[in-house]
């Protein structure tokens, strides 16, 4: 176990104390596990609350602040938060304009946010929800759990956050969030499994020299195992899978936002090299890239690997993407 922790039980609380120490802009309730933008209720804006299992940092707490989330609810590692957290967060950020829950599509997240939404509505808080489900590795059907929510969460939180910051009403913020999700697709690749504090050993065996295609962000294996490929082949596979799905949804043209995301343990040096390959494949396919974000944003603990998320973005989405944001992990124009 190569972990920098005190004990598996205290990992999330310890991290919250660290976030509180490092970011005086945030109100951190360690006990109740919510991270709230200071003064979130001021300004009469729509609130934006997200959350999910821990282990994906900086998602979500790293995205709390002006121009993005109003609050984040971190669950245990890879375990969705409990409804009490989202209920408290909604109460802490609602200025009467209502609150949008940004929910990644996992059974646990869906159920817990759903319960929280019911409790919050009982308390008189208007709630809308957006379900993020961008992962093309997973078959979407009525008879399955549907596509997972992964990298597009960042796009949804940034763009809906900009809309909320600009004073858009709840319905509009929710509509934009859904639009971003509908226009986004992702594909992930693991070069190593990750190790959860509770288990203390890798979540699956991946022999040296093999990789997993179509992984999610919870240390689960992917759809397929393959011998290792050079970065440019991985880019071809990932971009191919994403673009093929993207071509089936409207709008079918226009530039994309690209997120080249590291899973946690892949060095930035490699991630930038992979970015070059991703951009080359996109150029080959005639996809124009309007903005590229590279880094470890939606991670899976210490997993080595990467994911590619593309969002077909019109003028409005690009403008909201470029709007100022000031959070621990994403910051520009402010």
């Amino acid at each position: 176990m190569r972990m920098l922790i005190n004990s598996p039980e205290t990992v999330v609380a310890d991290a919250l104390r660290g976030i509180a120490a490092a970011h005086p802009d945030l109100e951190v309730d360690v006990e109740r596990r919510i991270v709230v933008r200071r003064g979130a209720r001021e300004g009469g804006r729509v609130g934006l609350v997200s959350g999910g299992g821990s282990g994906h940092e900086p998602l979500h707490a790293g995205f709390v602040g002006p121009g993005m989330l109003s609050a984040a609810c971190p669950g245990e590692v890879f375990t969705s938060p409990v409804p009490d957290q989202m209920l408290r967060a909604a109460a802490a950020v609602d200025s009467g304009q209502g609150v949008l829950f940004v929910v990644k599509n996992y059974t646990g997240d869906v159920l817990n946010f759903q319960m929280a939404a019911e409790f919050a509505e009982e308390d008189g808080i208007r709630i809308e929800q957006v379900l993020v489900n961008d992962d093309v590795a997973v078959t979407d059907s009525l008879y399955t759990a549907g596509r997972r929510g992964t990298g597009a969460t960042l796009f949804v939180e940034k763009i809906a956050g900009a809309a909320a910051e600009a004073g858009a009403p709840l319905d509009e913020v929710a509509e934009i969030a859904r639009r971003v999700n509908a226009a986004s697709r992702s594909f992930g690749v693991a070069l190593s499994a990750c190790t959860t504090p509770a288990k203390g050993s890798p979540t699956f065996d991946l022999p040296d020299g093999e990789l997993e295609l179509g992984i999610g962000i919870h240390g689960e294996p992917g759809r397929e195992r393959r011998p290792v490929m050079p970065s440019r082949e991985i880019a071809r596979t990932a971009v191919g899978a994403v673009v093929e799905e993207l071509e089936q949804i409207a709008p079918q043209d226009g530039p994309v936002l690209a997120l080249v995301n590291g899973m946690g343990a892949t060095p930035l040096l490699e991630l930038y090299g992979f970015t070059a390959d991703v951009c080359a494949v996109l150029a080959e396919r005639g996809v124009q890239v309007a903005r590229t974000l590279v880094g470890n944003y939606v991670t899976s603990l210490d997993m080595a690997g990467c994911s590619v998320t593309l969002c077909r973005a019109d003028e409005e989405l690009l403008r909201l993407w470029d709007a100022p944001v000031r959070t621990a992990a994403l910051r520009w124009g402010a």
Partner: protein
Amino acid sequence: MRDTDFFRRWMAAAAAAVEREADRLTELDSPIGDADHGSNLLRGFTAVRAALEAEPPATPAAVLGLAGRTLISTVGGASGPLYGTLLRRTGKELGDAAEVSDEDVRKALDAGVTAVAALGGAAAGDKTMLDALLPGVAALGTSYRAAAEAAEAGAAATVPMLARKGRASYLGERSIGHQDPGATSSALLLAALAEAAG
């Protein structure tokens, strides 16, 4: 007739079983899930035990209601709301009687399991906790022991299934060959019920 203490013994036995089997549940959740089912339930049932000791409820329904709410507030993940709903709904069915019959228990659990199916949208054969709960509750008409055994068999029968709900479904064909962790913990829950019944 089954009194309040019976339901407290059930929950205590369930907590003990989860404590004993937590590592195995997490192990099972590792190849086809996210390796947390054991620690999730351990956290939840430790809290249930503490809650029941802190303010001992007066009726069977109150025991299950408090246990269910505690699971919802402490577990998270898929299993928190599902098991929380199972217990809350089962409790609700029992009304405010101080003692209930075995038939009441059977009917209430049946309603509880139906609520789980409604909440999670899963059906028999989807490789979830329902594959232990459904046969388990069906066998309750015979005896608590029979229910426990049917649930255990139901859990074992998930091995060859292809998952259609929960995280394991993301694996597609690769979910085949592994026993479902939630079905396994459901079998523990019904075994604990049989244990409480003596």
